[in-house]
């Protein structure tokens, strides 16, 4: 028993300091894991004193409220525009925006792409749960074909609602983008891989290489209307074929 | 405090986009600013930058200018055929209307104003610099009103065109200015 505890202590990082606990996410939601990862990386990189988080309007904002760093949150979609300006006027601060997939791929798409094209030296964290979590699980740009949501009661059909959107792949070809990648936290191994990629994304901002975007796949048991364990299977079987993991762009120096 | 209406300049240039109303207004405002304590200049044009009705209002006074916009002006320079009748109506009684009659074919009907017909556009084209037509009209304005000495205008043209694309036209513009002055100095009333 005592040996097991020792191993566990070795594997898991120091408990992050949150301003507000519990986070209040639904059971089985992966946002809590993602926020913990964010906090771990920020602490390990020693940037907590410089970090400012621009949260969005949606479930992603709840985690932003809890982080023990300077934060702003509420508006749905324009996080990249806010972060762009804040970084420009305070270049020594470490600025990241957290967005849901609907914010990034729908209402905030214009700013997301424009910010990437300008090569703003900020990091964008996307949380992709294939639906609008807070408003009731409606069709998001990332909803899979065939997925039933309140606004696609017969399942998403290409003729009606088009194909799922891929944020990191969309902006990766833009010259202003230094890093674009996707990860998931539905298994411990993937969690560790994602943490590494998240750290790389953050390092691009420290090295002033340009725009970085990292997308997390996440479960949404409440809106998918399946159990948390079935969610893991859903990610494995349905989401991964649509949303490939890995790095789509990773530049080491500016052209 | 009563405003004295006699000690002031109030001019409208009514043309079409591209006729040089803006340049006319800017130049006259700059020149007026050298002699008057207060000036105002309002460019007023339709959404079309080229070809639409374009008008500038220039005022100068030793006392604070109450309004930079007015219906009636003491002097109106008109180069717009479509705006001609309105321009004629807007000259204050006893005022002056200067018409570019190479563009405007109609004749004024009012008898309580002084009207000069100056073929500025045609003369400018003949000298090879159509862009100087508004400077010919400026010269005509100066001579017809004696509002400013020509030297002030010349100085203003020099200082405002220095280092700009207009510098190329400096001597042509000055020549045009004097052309306009001569046209009025030797002006003969046209038989009706």
């Amino acid at each position, binding site marked *: 028993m005592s040996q097991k505890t020792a191993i566990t202590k070795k594997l898991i990082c120091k408990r992050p300091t949150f*301003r507000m606990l519990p986070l209040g996410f639904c059971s089985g939601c992966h946002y809590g894991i993602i926020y913990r990862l964010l906090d771990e990386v920020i602490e390990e990189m020693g940037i907590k*004193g*410089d970090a*400012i988080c*621009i949260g969005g*309007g949606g479930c992603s*904002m709840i985690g*932003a*409220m809890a982080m*023990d*760093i*300077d*934060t*702003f*949150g*509420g*508006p749905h979609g*324009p996080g990249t*525009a*806010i972060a*762009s*300006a*804040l970084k*420009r*006027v*305070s270049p*020594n*601060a*470490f600025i990241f925006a957290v967005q849901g997939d609907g914010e990034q791929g729908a209402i905030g798409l*214009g*700013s997301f792409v*424009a910010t990437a094209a300008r090569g703003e030296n900020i990091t964008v964290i996307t949380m992709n749960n294939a639906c609008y979590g807070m408003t009731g699980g409606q069709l998001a740009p990332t909803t899979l074909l065939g997925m039933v949501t309140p606004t696609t009661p017969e399942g998403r059909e290409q003729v009606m609602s088009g194909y799922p959107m891929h944020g990191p792949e969309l902006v990766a070809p833009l010259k202003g983008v230094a890093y674009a990648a996707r990860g998931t936290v539905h298994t411990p191994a993937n969690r560790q891989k994602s943490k590494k990629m998240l750290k790389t994304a953050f390092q691009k901002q420290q090295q002033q290489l340009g725009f970085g975007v990292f997308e997390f796949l996440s479960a949404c048991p409440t809106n998918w209307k399946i159990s948390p364990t079935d969610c893991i299977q859903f990610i494995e079987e349905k989401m991964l074929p649509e949303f490939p993991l890995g790095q789509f762009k990773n530049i080491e120096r500016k052209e | 405090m*009563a405003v004295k209406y006699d000690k002031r300049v109030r001019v409208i240039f*009514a043309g079409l986009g591209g006729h040089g109303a803006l340049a006319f207004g800017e130049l006259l*405002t700059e020149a007026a*600013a050298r002699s008057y304590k*207060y*000036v*105002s*200049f*309002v*460019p*007023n*044009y*339709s*959404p*079309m*930058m080229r070809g*639409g*009705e*374009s008008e500038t209002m220039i005022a100068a006074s030793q006392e604070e*200018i*109450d*309004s*930079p*916009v*007015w*219906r009636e002006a003491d002097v109106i320079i008109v180069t717009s055929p479509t*705006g001609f009748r*309105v321009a004629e109506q807007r000259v204050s009684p006893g005022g002056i209307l200067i018409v570019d009659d190479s563009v405007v074919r109609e004749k004024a009907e009012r008898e309580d104003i002084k009207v000069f017909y100056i073929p500025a556009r045609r003369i400018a084209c003949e000298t090879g610099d159509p862009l100087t037509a508004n400077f010919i009209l400026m010269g005509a304005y100066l001579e017809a009103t004696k509002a400013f000495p020509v030297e002030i205008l010349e100085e203003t043209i020099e200082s405002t065109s220095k280092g700009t694309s207009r510098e190329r036209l400096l001597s042509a513009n000055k020549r045009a200015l004097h052309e306009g002055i001569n046209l009025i100095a030797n002006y003969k009333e046209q038989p009706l």
Partner: protein
Amino acid sequence: MTERILSTGNDAVARAAIYAGCKNYFGYPITPQSEIAHYMARELPKMGGCFLQSEGEYAAAYMLLGAALSGQRAFTSTSSPGVALMQEPLSMMITAEIPAVIVDTQRLGPGTGTGGQQGQTDYSFVTRGVYGGIHYPVLAPYSVSEIFELVQLAFHIADKYRVVTMVLTDFILGRMTEYMELKTFDFGPLPEKDWALKGKDRKGGRTDFLLTVTGMMLDIPGFFAHQQEKSNRIIDSETRYETYKAEDADFLIVGYGYAARASKRAVNMARDQGIKAGLFRPITLWPFPKEAMKREALKSGKVLVVEDSPGGLVEDVKLAVEGVSPVHFLGIQARHTASPEGLIFPERILQEVRELL
């Protein structure tokens, strides 16, 4: 000795912002105010400031919010349809109490409007506050030199009350050239911006969370009580207006912006004809100078509101006057339509005054 220069109204906006110590500008091109952006794009980089042309007005106002989060002064300028696109960010800033300045150089009409046309058709739209039932101060200059002063005042009011402050000009004011004196106005001390987001290391380890989700931060009545208390302070301290020859007037003309200039001339022309006319000019459109308006209306007996719109200011005047004297209206239909864009000229105002006598 202060320097006296010729400037357009739009340039005066830009110069005033720089004189007020604002080094951050965000905007999207729209006629008739793009010259403000041109000026900032030229000057700010020289001063180490931030000029950023956004992907739209919505983004411009959110960039304004982002820059203002740092505690630095920031401003944007736009024209009517652009203000509509900025409504959400304006409401967000007011909710999270992030101070910033926005300049609306009005253009004519609903829809796309007409970029090259004068209009005062934003009055009701900008003076009723943002969605969510909260007001913000709106200042209405009527000359180039007053633009220069009121833009600086707008920054002061914004910082003093942690609110978004608007300066409302129009096509004529923006494009016209007049003299102005270059100077920094001192409006008094300001509170420290201890709420600004800078990273906890720069704030002695403290962290702040600025949230626009009203219900999550405060109880709802508490939030509105706080906003109301702030509005009351602004009403008490910042209400501004001006009168011209109103002391002995028995006919009062009311207007703001360029219409107030035309009205001022109409007053002078009327006086020349022996008509005792006067001018009442609200300088703050919100808070509207209600008490002064009522007092002056009561004194003169007859009121004519002149504005280049179907009617916006006239509603505020009627509310303020509370029926103590008749309120007449001369609006957009009184334009001299034969000129390229048609303005309400002093001569037309005088004609109306004579007809109403």
